[in-house]
């Protein structure tokens, strides 16, 4: 009887001691499944990020090309046409008038050269990695200002890290570009403020305008261009978020916060 009890006790204890490794093995299997899912999700996110980055790069290039094309046609082209017309209308017999027209032509040519230089800067903006985010946004602002339609106040904080993140810079630049596009197309604004600030590992890009604004859910930008959803999505891809505030007649304020660099 005593032997049977001891036998049962030994069997029971051995079974308990076998349950422990069995539990560990099952747990490892479950954990491994989760880990595999996590690895796959991470891979998927990396792929999405890479494709989004390529898309952004292409969009930035396309936007730059459109700007250059429009600038060449509307601005430099006009200046050069005018120069040509002025030079053609010179009457060599009337030296005083000819002198005046030659001076005008020189002035027009100089303005063309100046415009070409600005265009060159804009082209450099496409190569963000080379000029840096602060400078690239400044060039974008300069280009907007040249239209004469907007009064723009651009402030960039001194504490923005020098060791920037090229991928993040590109996406932030693209967001800025598209917000500007939306302002041009839909806002009918006259004043724009652009703030680029850095504090506690976060880069904040704030763009505000005094345009017509919109009611949430009825945003015109949803139908045109990048859309507010896309701004949020792109900010999300680089670990940030976008806050959009707007009211009819009171303009729009967009603040994008991104962990940086």
């Amino acid at each position: 009887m005593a032997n049977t009890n001891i036998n049962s006790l030994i069997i029971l204890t051995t079974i308990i001691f076998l349950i422990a490794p069995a539990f560990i093995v099952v747990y490892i299997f479950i954990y491994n499944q989760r880990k595999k899912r996590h690895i796959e999700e991470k891979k998927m996110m990396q792929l999405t990020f890479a494709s989004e980055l390529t898309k952004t790069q292409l969009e930035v290039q396309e936007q730059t090309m459109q700007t250059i094309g429009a600038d060449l046609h509307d601005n430099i082209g006009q200046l050069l046409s005018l120069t040509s017309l002025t030079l053609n209308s010179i009457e060599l017999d009337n030296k005083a008038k000819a002198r005046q027209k030659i001076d005008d032509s020189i002035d027009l040519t100089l303005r063309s050269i100046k415009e070409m230089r600005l265009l060159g800067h804009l082209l450099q903006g496409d190569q963000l990695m080379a000029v840096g985010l602060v400078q690239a946004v400044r060039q974008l602002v300069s280009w907007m200002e040249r239209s004469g339609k907007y009064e723009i106040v651009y402030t960039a904080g001194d504490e923005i890290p020098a060791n920037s993140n090229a991928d993040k810079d590109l996406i932030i630049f693209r967001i800025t570009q598209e917000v500007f596009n939306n302002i041009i197309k839909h806002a009918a604004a006259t004043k724009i403020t652009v703030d680029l600030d850095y504090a506690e590992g976060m880069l904040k890009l704030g763009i505000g305008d005094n345009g017509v604004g919109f009611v949430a859910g009825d945003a015109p930008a949803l139908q045109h261009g990048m859309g507010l959803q896309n701004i949020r999505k792109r900010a999300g891809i680089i670990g940030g978020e976008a806050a959009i505030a707007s009211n009819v007649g009171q303009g729009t304020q967009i603040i994008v916060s991104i962990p940086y660099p």
Partner: protein
Amino acid sequence: MVLQYFTTNTSVELVCLISALVSLGKSRLCTSWFIILFLLITVTTEMVAIPIKIHYLKDTKHNLPNIWLYNLLLIVQVAFYNIIFAALLNKKIYRNPILFIFLPILFGFYVYEISVHGLFEYNELTNSIFSTEIVLCSLVFYYDLFKSDLNIKLGSYSDFWFVTGILFFFFGSTVLNLFYGIIKQILPNNKHFVGYIYNALNILLYGFWSYSFICKRWLTPTLTV
């Protein structure tokens, strides 16, 4: 007469040895050949132990007439498992704290036990410490698996099944190891019962190992063991 050599233990070990020869026979890894050699030594020891036991069955002086053979096998087991875990944990023995600490302790206890009771009593204490070392090594192996960023298919991961067999055997036999002395005193005529538990644990160990060799040969040919 021949059939007496084929006990549950020897049969399972033999199956595992054949499985190792078929699966790892063409392997160029040293560890694969260590496994085959170890299984060969184990099977031989078990088979040699049977006639010795029968021959000395009338020996009344010593309770277990063939235990000296298992005491010798213990040295082979310690060497084998330490080498295998050094390979599995991707570290040299002297850089692995568990192996580095346990090896001298095991050596010390082995010498101490032999000097106290000679070869004809089993080195229970050494075996218990050895089991603890192997359980710890197995858990470290699992911990490394947890930390690893690799996308591993556990179902066909030979190293995992190899260690799982080891963990089941050594963890499961802890009760018997710890209470071996007491069981021997309380149940002197009940050795068969303890034998059954060891048989079950051996089936688990060599079953997992055989599957591990199959995984190694046909499913995961580039792994450590």
